[in-house]
Each structure stands twice: as structure tokens, then as C-alpha cells.
């Protein structure tokens, strides 16, 4: 279980122009839950994710993973970045990229080989191990990044707008891949996106953020049936209703602003 308690992040504290990115944010993610974080652009989503991942110290508040306070990158957590082309290492083959985080795991050679093969197969890239990331398409590269995160065998996967730079068809495929992997590996997923459809389609709960300085505007339950399907789920009246609801929740500050003017 992941608990984020009153996290606040101020950049350039003590300078003449401090910038408050995250004001006061609390959220809890239960085991095996799929939670999405959506918010207007510039809402400090990435900042928040970095604090949760232990990559950036928060100004105040705390993050707990299974009741242990997060002070550095936890062993039970893996990250998938939006920018796969910068997150994968071009001088390593696909296999070496996937093997990269296993340094910390102290596994035997055969165990590592099996893990690499297994995770690459599970993202549909069983034959691409000897290639270099830049020889693959964008969608395939992000699959490699996902395989690498899975090889790390995390309990929770943090994904920072992972599908923002792939085309729509690939995006739908990757969304379904993530749902399938979540079932297969039994992992918890915290998913940051600016795409409301995507958040509603994937999640058990959607956390709506306010514009920066960020806090939680609302948490929306998504009781859509699983397994989800790109066509069937999205034609459900409930899907349309929830999507509209989340949409209004994000746009509300702007609407009230225009209403005042």
C-alpha cells in the first residue's frame, strides 16, 4: 500500500521567487489497485511523481510504501518515463537495457536470462532482445521500458504519461497491454496522464488535481466492469458519464472563472 501524506513541494525555497508546485496532497493507493492521476497541464504531476518515487525530496509531508517511509528510490517500486527514447540507453541492446536494473537484485546468470526472456515475451518482444532500442518503433521502445520495469519485479509501478508520445492505435494497444500485465504480475499501478479517456478506461479510481499549487480536487471511483475492452467499455453509458464527470471536475476552475467574467 502506498500512502502519500500532506506532501508539499516548493522549488527555490528561500530565494526571492519560490515556486510552490505541490501545495498539500494526500492520496492512498491500495494493493493491486489501478489509480490514475489527472490534472490540467502544468499541475505539478511530474513533480508529485518524483517525490513519490524518492527521486526528489519533498518540502514537507511524507510518502510511505508498506508503512516504510520513502527516502530514496524504493526497491519495491519501478518507474516508466514518458520519454522512452531518453530513458532507454542507446548503447545497450534491448536485453542489456532490461537487465540493467537487475544489478541490485543479485540474481544468478540463468535467473537473469529467464527474467529477461519472460518479461520481453510478456510485452510481445520475445525476438527483439539482440536489437538496439533505436532500431525499434516508438511503441516498441516503450514496451522495452515496461519490460525493464517489470524485470525489476516491483510491487508498484509508477507511470509518468507513458503513452503521450505514441500514435492513437499504439496507445490503445499499450493500454490493454498494461492492464493484462497488471493481472499477470499482480502489481499496483499509479498512472499519471493528462488524457481523461485513458484515465477512466484504465483505472479503479481517478485522482483529479487542481492547477498548481497542486492539491487533490476530487477522487472519482470508476466502477466499470473488468476486463475492460477498448470498444465495449467505451460504449457503456457509464463510461460516457464518468468521462464527462472527470472532465468537468478538471475544467471547473476555468468555468467558474469565465462565469465570473
Amino acid at each position, binding site marked *: 500500500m502506498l500512502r502519500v501524506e500532506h506532501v508539499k513541494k516548493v522549488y527555490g525555497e528561500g530565494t526571492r521567487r519560490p515556486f510552490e508546485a505541490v501545495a498539500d496532497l494526500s492520496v492512498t493507493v491500495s494493493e493491486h489497485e489501478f489509480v490514475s492521476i489527472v490534472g490540467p497541464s502544468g499541475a505539478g504531476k511530474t513533480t508529485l511523481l*518524483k517525490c513519490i518515487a524518492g527521486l526528489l525530496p519533498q518540502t514537507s509531508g511524507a510518502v510511505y510504501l508498506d508503512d516504510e517511509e520513502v527516502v*530514496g528510490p524504493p526497491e519495491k517500486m519501478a518507474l516508466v518515463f514518458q520519454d522512452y527514447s531518453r530513458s532507454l540507453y*542507446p*548503447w545497450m541492446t534491448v536485453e542489456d537495457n532490461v537487465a540493467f536494473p537487475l544489478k*541490485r537484485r543479485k540474481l544468478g546468470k540463468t535467473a537473469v536470462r529467464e527474467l529477461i526472456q519472460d518479461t520481453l515475451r510478456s510485452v510481445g518482444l520475445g525476438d527483439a532482445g539482440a536489437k538496439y532500442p533505436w532500431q525499434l518503433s516508438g511503441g516498441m521502445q516503450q514496451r522495452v521500458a515496461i519490460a525493464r520495469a517489470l524485470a525489476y519485479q516491483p510491487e508498484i509501478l509508477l507511470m509518468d504519461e507513458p503513452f503521450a508520445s505514441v500514435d492513437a492505435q499504439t496507445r490503445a494497444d499499450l493500454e490493454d497491454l498494461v492492464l493484462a500485465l497488471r493481472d499477470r504480475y499482480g502489481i499496483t499501478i499509479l498512472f499519471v496522464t493528462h488524457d481523461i479517456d485513458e484515465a477512466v478506461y484504465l483505472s479503479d479510481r481517478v485522482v483529479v488535481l487542481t492547477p498548481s499549487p497542486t492539491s487533490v480536487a476530487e477522487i472519482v471511483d470508476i466502477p466499470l466492469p473488468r476486463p475492460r475492452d477498448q470498444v465495449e467499455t467505451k460504449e457503456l453509458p457509464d463510461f460516457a458519464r464518468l468521462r464527462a464527470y472527470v472532465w468537468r471536475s478538471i475544467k471547473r476552475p476555468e468555468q467558474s472563472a469565465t462565469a465570473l467574467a
Partner: protein
Amino acid sequence: MAAGEARTRHVARSLLGRALPVVGVAIAVSLFEFASRSGLVDARFLPPASSMLGSLVDQVADGSIWQPVGQTLQGWALGLGLAMAIALPLGTLIGSVFLLFMATRSIVEFLRPVPSVALIPLAVLLFGAGLESKIFLATFAATWPILLQTLYGVRDVDPVAMETARSFGIKAPQRLRRVVLPSALPYIATGVRISSAVALILSVTAELVLGAPGLGQEINIARQSGAVELMYGLIIATGLIGWGLNVLVALVERRLLHWHPSQRERT
């Protein structure tokens, strides 16, 4: 039909691409030959190309060229090697520690533009006129390009690449070896390529000016004894060595950086 035509055109173009450099060299050499033979220039100072090359061939044939070539290459190799041994760790260190970078910036910016040749008197004072002076000068000059390239290469590592490694709990020494250095390698390679040329220039300079044994000294001796053709032959030899070393460094670079966008199309 159209495809066949396109292929013919492609073949013709690639043949032309290979032939043109050779044609260019042939024209240049002929012009040289003609200018001298026709009396356009004084053959005493600029003998025809054929006799320059002839004297070079003679030197190769009787084997007398190999010792000075070896001495010059020794200066190059030791100068470049020492420069790498100094600049790579130092550049990595300064590039990794921001405070050190800020503190050393003005020193580096001041020392770097000092022409190595200006240090010749110092070299003589410290080491005399032999191999040590040659290596000192070559090392001093060759250190800067590698140092600066390493420094900026290490500083320019993509933050996402670093955060990825940190998020997987990869410790600093491993990050240095597996992320920082590979990603700085294109910069470092450029630095080494520049320094290789610089080390050769300074070796020959030291031989010319100080009389340290090597091709530069041989060129000087040939000039003093009025063997103009031999002098030119040796100058051509230094040029060929420079070209050869550049090809060698480029080959190593291509192997090490086969993954880099600048090299991908060639493999």
C-alpha cells in the same frame, strides 16, 4: 525499365563518387609538376612533385625514414596517452562535481588558450631538448581538448537517463560506468580526435625547434644541407602520418560509437 535506368544512374554516381577524389589528387599533383617544370616557380625552392615523392620513396626503400617516423610517433603516442591519462579522470571529476566545475572554470579558461609553443623555453629549462620536452609539449597541448570535451560531456548527460538509473537504485559508481561515461563518449571521442592531431603537431614542432630527434629534426637537417627534395619528401611523410592517424582514430571511434546517431547509417 525505369528501375533499370535508376540502377544504372546509381552505379554511375557511386563510381563517380569514388573516382573524383583520385582525379582531384591527380590534377593537383600534375599542376605541381607542371608549375615547377615549366619554370613558373623556381625549381630550387619548389621542385617538381615527382622528385619530392621520389626522394620519399628512396627514404622508404633504404629504410632510413623509419627511425625518425618511430621517434615522432613515440612523441605522439606518449603525449596523447599522458593527456588522456590526465584529462579523462580530471574531466570526469570536474564535470561531476558542480562546485569544482565553478571553481576551476576560470583557471581552465585562462590556461587553455596559452599556445603550447610559448612553453618551449620552459620545457627546455625543465627537461632539456630531448624526448621529455617533446612529450611535455605534446601532453600540455593535447590535454585541453580532451579535458574540456570530457567535462562538458559528463555535464551534458540526459537527466532522464540519470533519473532512470537512480529510480532503479543504481549506485553512483555504477551510474558513472554504465550511464555517464557511455553517454559522454561521443564528446570524449571528438576530444581525442582533436588531441591526436594536436599531439602530432607539437611533436613535430618540438623536433623542428628544439632539435629533438624525429621527422621535424630531419626536415631541418635536410633544409640546412640544401636537400630541398628530401625536405619536401619528409614534409609529405608528416602529412601522411597525420592522415593515417586520423583514419585510425576515426576507425576506433566508429567501433565504440556504432550506436550513436552520427555513426548509425554507416554500419
